[in-house]
């Protein structure tokens, strides 16, 4: 039995209970809220519950460039805000998303008060459920957004100290957080995190020290990992699943399964493995636009 699509309203798909920031708060505070909640934009609402703007990752990057994290949110927010009524249909929302390149819209009631927020992913997700084409149960944290086209390319560098076992994975972890903050889609974040983690583990197991550099742009994420180790004698052999030269002590800890390079290859769109005069260099390219 199919319901009329027009019956699905914004209030049915929106996220209720809005996390907002005060206009007099600092950009730093807004950034912390967004980081801890994993949001790429939050509405700016004053104490009279009046919507003044939205502050997004792009605004925060602008503040970062000016070294102005202490500045007030109201100075960096985007004040031209488009809202949608809670009683509007999801069809109207889809048109709005199509016509404007925003990732989210605040939802207002008839009195103009903000009652929720709706993302592109919320609408698509609920429509999928409505149409019975969803494969996975939805949950609150699901916020699948397309790649954010707005962010400015940036470089992430991380020194890898081999045998510093306790800290292994922190480079990948930092990279993951940066990508998530930039609003990169989940699949790309996951693939980048896996590739970076495995590369980091390889440096720890096989080399003395190394360095991870990630060039991040909306079109391409390039992770370069260079180490000062023995390199690889037979690269095609090392690419095979199950082939490993890791020492026993690492194997006991669950490493050295011979899955590192195969995992990286599977996660990457392109992978170059080359011996250098110092050690090994991996160039891992992940291209978000390839994702359907």
């Amino acid at each position, binding site marked *: 039995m199919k319901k009329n699509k027009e019956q699905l309203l914004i209030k049915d798909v929106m996220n209720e209970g809005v996390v907002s920031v005060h206009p007099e708060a600092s950009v730093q505070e807004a950034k912390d809220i967004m980081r801890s909640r994993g949001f790429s934009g939050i509405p700016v609402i004053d104490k009279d519950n009046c919507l003044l703007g939205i502050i997004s990752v792009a605004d925060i990057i602008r503040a970062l460039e000016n070294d102005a994290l202490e500045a007030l949110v109201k100075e960096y927010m985007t004040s031209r805000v488009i809202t949608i009524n809670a009683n509007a249909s999801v069809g109207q929302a889809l048109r709005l998303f199509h016509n404007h390149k925003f990732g989210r819209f605040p939802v207002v009631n008839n009195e103009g008060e903000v009652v929720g927020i709706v993302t592109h992913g919320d609408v698509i997700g609920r429509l999928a459920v409505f149409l019975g084409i969803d494969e*996975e*149960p939805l*949950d*609150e*944290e699901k916020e699948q957004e397309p790649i954010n086209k707005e962010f400015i390319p940036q470089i992430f560098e991380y020194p890898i100290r081999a045998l510093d*076992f*306790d800290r*292994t*994975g*922190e480079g*990948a*972890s930092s990279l*993951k957080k940066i990508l998530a903050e930039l609003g990169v889609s*989940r699949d790309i974040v*996951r693939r980048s*995190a*896996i590739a970076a*983690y*495995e590369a980091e*583990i390889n440096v720890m197991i096989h080399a003395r020290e190394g360095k991870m550099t990630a060039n991040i742009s909306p079109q391409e994420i390039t992770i370069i990992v260079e180490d000062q180790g023995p390199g690889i004698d037979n690269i095609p052999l090392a690419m095979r699943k199950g082939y490993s030269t890791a020492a026993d002590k690492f194997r006991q*800890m*669950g*490493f050295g*399964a*011979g*899955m*590192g390079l*195969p*995992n990286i290859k*599977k996660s990457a769109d392109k992978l170059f493995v080359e011996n250098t005069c110092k050690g090994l260099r991996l160039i891992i390219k992940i291209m978000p636009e390839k994702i359907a």
Partner: protein
Amino acid sequence: MNLRRIVGNLQVEAVYNSEIKDNTVIKGCYIGDLLSNVMAHAKSGDIWITVQSHQNVVAVAQLLNLPAIIFVDGHKPQQETIEKAEQEGIYLFATEETAYNIAASLYSLGVGRSEK
């Protein structure tokens, strides 16, 4: 399925005290001790069953968005593991039960099967 509801029905103990957030949803389960295998196959939202107790498991869970880890067969996580998990907000549980028994209980509860 909410993690709180799951652990209420399992023979496991919380490793550190922390209230489970309402929106902690478990979508499936992965069992493994080879970290690269876990990296390759565990999915976001899975609860992870393992015997590896060193702190790198937290890094793996954090990278893959695995909300919780269950240490089975009486394995207990190391102190550094616990501290790092608290920091990253990964829930830890321990049990004397086997991976098989825990996984079977999860399956009976409906974890990883389509919810309606």
